[in-house]
């Protein structure tokens, strides 16, 4: 095996309130592989466990049982500090709301993960953030505070931030759920473009079937189980 899989889940279960009478299992044994460069949609009704699964994959939470590998590293074997480091380098996040720190400018928000990792700002960091800001088309907004940007612009900044550590996998939780159709299309196009250019894998949680249809693979989660997992032929007309 030349290159480890970006993501591998084996029999992942997650229960809340373990040890109490109210213990409920949310995920009932998930097996999943994501290869490098895959652009995958995760769909399913509310309460099906999508967000729980995303938190586990994003190393924000630990599974009750099962094994989880990111870029070949088994998460269960890491302590909290190592988990934070792995999360910082291997996974990028784009959330639906409250993505950015309002006290910082667009470019500073993009820099933050790198700054946290290195401890002090430097010129290389500034350059990399600036080029990512340019890549998401916000150069003229780079110096504006996050709160002064529109919702679509904020999501673009969040995407740039998710990419600054050059992660193997970007997790996006309803990245366009808060946007009007036009901005949503723009943000989605940007995700696809980054995916094509950098080979970064994407896992996108969405309620929007229109967006899911524009992904290479669609995984449907129902009641904590994978109900379907199928490749999807993207019609090239819709892609641009």
């Amino acid at each position: 095996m030349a290159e480890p899989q970006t993501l591998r889940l084996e029999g992942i279960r997650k229960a809340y309130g373990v040890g109490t009478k109210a213990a409920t299992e949310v995920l009932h044994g998930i097996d999943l592989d994501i290869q490098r460069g895959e652009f995958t949609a995760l769909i399913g009704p509310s309460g099906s466990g999508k967000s729980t699964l995303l938190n586990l994959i994003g190393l924000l939470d630990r599974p009750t049982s099962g094994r989880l590998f990111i870029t070949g590293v088994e998460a269960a074997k890491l302590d909290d500090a190592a988990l934070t480091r792995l999360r910082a380098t291997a996974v990028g996040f784009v959330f639906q709301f409250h993505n950015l720190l309002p006290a910082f400018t667009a470019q500073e928000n993009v820099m933050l993960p790198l700054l946290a990792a290195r401890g002090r700002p430097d010129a290389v960091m500034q350059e990399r953030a600036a080029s990512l800001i340019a890549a998401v088309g916000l150069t003229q907004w780079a110096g504006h505070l996050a709160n002064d940007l529109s919702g679509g612009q904020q999501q673009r900044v969040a995407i740039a931030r998710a990419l600054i550590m050059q992660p193997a996998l970007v997790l996006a939780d309803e990245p366009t759920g808060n946007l009007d159709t036009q901005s949503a299309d723009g943000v989605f196009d940007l995700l696809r473009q980054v995916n094509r250019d950098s080979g970064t894998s994407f896992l996108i949680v969405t309620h929007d079937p229109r967006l899911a249809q524009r992904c290479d693979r669609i995984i449907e989660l129902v009641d904590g189980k994978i109900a379907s997992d199928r490749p999807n032929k993207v019609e090239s007309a819709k892609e641009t």
Partner: protein
Amino acid sequence: MNPLLPFEWILATRFMREGLMQTLLIISGVALGVSVIVFISALISGLQSNLFRRTLDYQAQIVIRPPEEIARTLHTEGDVDWATLVQPRAQRLRSVDQWQTVRKLLEKMPEVVVVAPVVAGAGFVLRGNADKAVNMTGIEPESYLRLIALQAQMVAGSAELGSDDILIGTELGNSLGVGLGDKLILQTASKASATLTVSGIFDFGNKGINERSVYVALRTAQSLLNLPGGATSIELNVVKPFDAEIVAQSISAQTGLDVQSWIVLNAQFFSALQAQSMSNFIIRFFVGLTAALGIASVLVVSVVQKSKEIGILRATGTTRGQILRLFLLQGAVMGCLGSLVGSAAGWAFLMAWRGIAKNANGTPLFVIEFDPMLFLWAALGATLVGTLAAVFPARTAAKLDPAVAIRG
């Protein structure tokens, strides 16, 4: 972003600037507390050193006397005591045995500043038909004037007396009608007498002392009191007045003499000083506690307000340690800034107070002791208190579950 600042500093300053109102309020709160501490401390230490000076200006810190004479019982045979009633002996005036040797020994001690032999006893001053009972103190000017600030109390003449000179108080001079250069007869109970010239008049600000004390040369007192070459006490000052009792005990152990420090001789005054220090400490403690609670509550609120941002930071690779330091830093910075503002304000209060609180004659009512170290300690203390106050909120922030925090 300032490239010189580490990550936590950048975040801390941004967070504090973001909640500027809260930050300013709590800095004002800390400043108020620190200014109260600075003001009260300066006032109390000024008051204390003033009292302290007034007490120690007029008495030596350690006084060494010959041991008391004890009436010994007759020897005991078996269980029978021959003398069943023992009367304490009347203490006659005696010299400290071998005082010159003791003096040399004391002068070699590093803790000792100055040693002065004294011959003190009772006498009468006579002028014409008038006579007054006085306490005569025979001194060696070169050592005694370094021990007691006598020169500073002189209103006429000089404290540097010769063997035919006498120093008297203002009240005694008035009641006898004598002034500088006039002659007096000093007589003792054993009818020894000397005719002396008034070479100086002092005012200790105490009527009793001014009326009953006279100073003569050591030799004059020795001959009048029939103690040739003797000294009824040896008095000394030490480098650290508050260590006087420790030094006194070590001298007592070495010489077997009766050694007493000003701390024992002025037990009441000393306990008053300690009570003051204690009240000062209590004020500091509670003001510090109040400031700490203020900082802690602001940070607790801030952690709640910023929980989503903390979640984002955690999700994008900020470690628990970094979050912890971020909030500790905010506490420290608020404490430190508050103490700087508070020190300045406390200083301004002191200046204003010095201008307002005056005696009728225009001299300041309170002597305010101004110790620059007080500001340094206030700043360090407030920074420490701020950091400690931030421990609980910082731990809360560091423990936040990023998944929960982001969902909100």
